[in-house]
């Protein structure tokens, strides 16, 4: 783990840099009041890299990826996304959020809008895409997640798995460079997890940069380029999946894996 972090270049965050390392987090700390929730996070993500983040609940996994698009504010350290530094500057935050799609545990679809309107809202209002064009793009993505026939229904009329696929399509409609997944299958019934994971695997095959907080270890093995294990607000260990699962170095990783793979 340590060698991967030190390998991250420190002085080259300029424009040339953005191509290769699409996300760069250096020495990030975050507190909730007095609670030190993230401690010295260092993470570099290359373009098209697929990362799975796992760890016990309360370990700060979600908080960490939510810092990347500023749903949570960090108090110390630097975050660069696509060459843009994430600061209090609202302009930078807006620029970053355009490039970063996010899928939530509880879908967070807009219940007063149809599936199609959910998908076209971002392109129309944030990217100023003409409505017709936005709808065509939305239908294309809805077909890709295999629910074009639900386009004119409201989210409340769909199953959980369908809603999560709509949420993925909605994010993709913004044509993001990075997709963040915050426990996308944790709120789903078992028979619906597969349809969402299949959608995510297909997305990974298209070369999307993905950061995924999940407990689906099968997904991690198939898709991830790197698995990160977090505990107590720190990155404890990271490795490519085979070595991570077969040969975990840290005892906390071993304990976590033994618990999660036991059932």
């Amino acid at each position, binding site marked *: 783990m340590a060698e991967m972090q030190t390998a991250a270049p420190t002085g080259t965050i300029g424009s040339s840099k953005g191509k290769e390392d699409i996300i760069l987090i250096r020495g990030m700390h975050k507190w909730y009041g007095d609670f030190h929730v993230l401690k010295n996070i260092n993470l570099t993500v290359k373009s098209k890299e697929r990362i799975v983040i796992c760890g016990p609940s309360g370990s700060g996994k979600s908080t960490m990826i939510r810092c990347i*698009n500023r*749903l949570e504010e960090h108090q110390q350290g630097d975050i660069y996304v696509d060459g843009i530094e994430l600061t209090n500057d609202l302009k930078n935050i807006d620029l970053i*959020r355009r490039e*970063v*799609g996010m899928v939530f545990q*509880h879908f967070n679809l807009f219940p*007063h809008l149809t599936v199609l309107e959910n998908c076209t*809202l971002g392109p129309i209002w*944030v990217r100023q895409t003409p409505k017709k064009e936005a709808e065509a793009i939305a239908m294309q993505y809805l077909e890709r997640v295999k629910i074009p026939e639900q386009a004119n229904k409201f989210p409340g009329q769909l199953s959980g798995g369908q809603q999560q696929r709509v949420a993925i399509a909605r994010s993709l409609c913004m044509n993001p460079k990075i997709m963040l997944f915050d426990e996308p299958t944790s709120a789903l019934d078992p028979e619906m997890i597969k349809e969402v994971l299949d959608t995510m695997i297909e997305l990974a095959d298209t070369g999307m940069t993905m950061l995924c907080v999940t407990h689906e270890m099968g997904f991690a093995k198939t898709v991830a380029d790197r698995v990160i294990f977090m505990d107590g607000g720190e990155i404890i260990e990271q490795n490519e999946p085979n070595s991570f699962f077969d040969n975990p170095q840290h005892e906390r990783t071993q304990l976590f894996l033994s618990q999660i793979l036991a059932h």
Partner: protein
Amino acid sequence: MATTHNPDMTPGLENAYEPGEHPSWPAPSSVKGPIHWVRTNLFGSVTNTLLTLLTFYLIYKIVPPLIDWLFIDAAYTGESRKDCEAQAAGACWAFIGSRLQLFIYGFYPEPERWRVNLSAILLVVALVPVLFDQVPQRGKWLIYTACFPVIAGVLLVGGIFGLEHVATDQFGGLMLNVIIGVTGISFSLPIGICLALGRQSHLPIIRVLCVSFIEFIRGVPLITLLFVAAVMLSYFVPPGTNFDLLVRMLIMVTLFASGYMAEVIRGGLQAIPKGQYEAADAMGLKYWQAMRLIILPQALKISIPGIVNTFIALYKDTTLVIVIGRLDILGIGRSSLADSAWNGLSTEVYVFVAIFFFVSCFLMSRYSLYLEKKLHTGH
């Protein structure tokens, strides 16, 4: 359960269908239909039956005499109370009829009353695109709606375009209620939304201002505010400017309703899950876009009952203008009672005024139900 315990109870039924092949049967008549409804809702238990019978008895005792007094045994023509009593023992509607113009227009000059009628028609036209979103050319129509307050103001007050000037102290009756009510309703909603959002603001100055305003408004009776409008406001405006009393009342009534509206809408805003804000943020929507497109449509939908409640309360509060010497429909009614020819007919007057308010408020209430049904998108 019963069949598993005692399979012999229903011989032959267990094997009628293969496992997993059982079709859905229609529900037995004991759980649906009018007879079922009557049995469960009116005669479900002994208490229920007694209450039902008591209610029927009361309806029988109250409703027929009421209809008799209101319509059948009522006098519709006549020049005085004596004429009415000579005709019938019931209500003397001739009194209301003889004063109807006064009830509607107050002291608005007779030759100019067409302007009030025209304003009323234009008001209805202006309301259509607000109330119903399926109308054609809604966008352009709404521009007209936005211009309506100016058009109505010019039309009613006059003084330009060759229209004779009518002082606002000649406004009265139903017209005054509608002017104050519609103005208060249409301006208190947007102001209330701003106050509710301001109360949630991250900027302390805005938050403190909004909270103080809301708490002040809610802590002071409307009558006090109207007195302030009538007496004190002239101290704050530059000397010499004539700040119309009606305009002051409109401002006070609107601000008063806004304070309540803000709290109703805040309730709606708090019911929106945090995830909706996060999804809007993650999408890159700006604050006002997120509010307008995501948060407010949902928050206002939840708040509809409370919003309409505030509207109805405001509408009925328009009768309070009587305390500063303006005669609305209720005031006209009270002053009409002083006429010696029609002495002692207060019941008719108050019933008439009550019916007017009931019809207006009931329509608002029904519209809100329609809106709630239309906006319901979940399961």
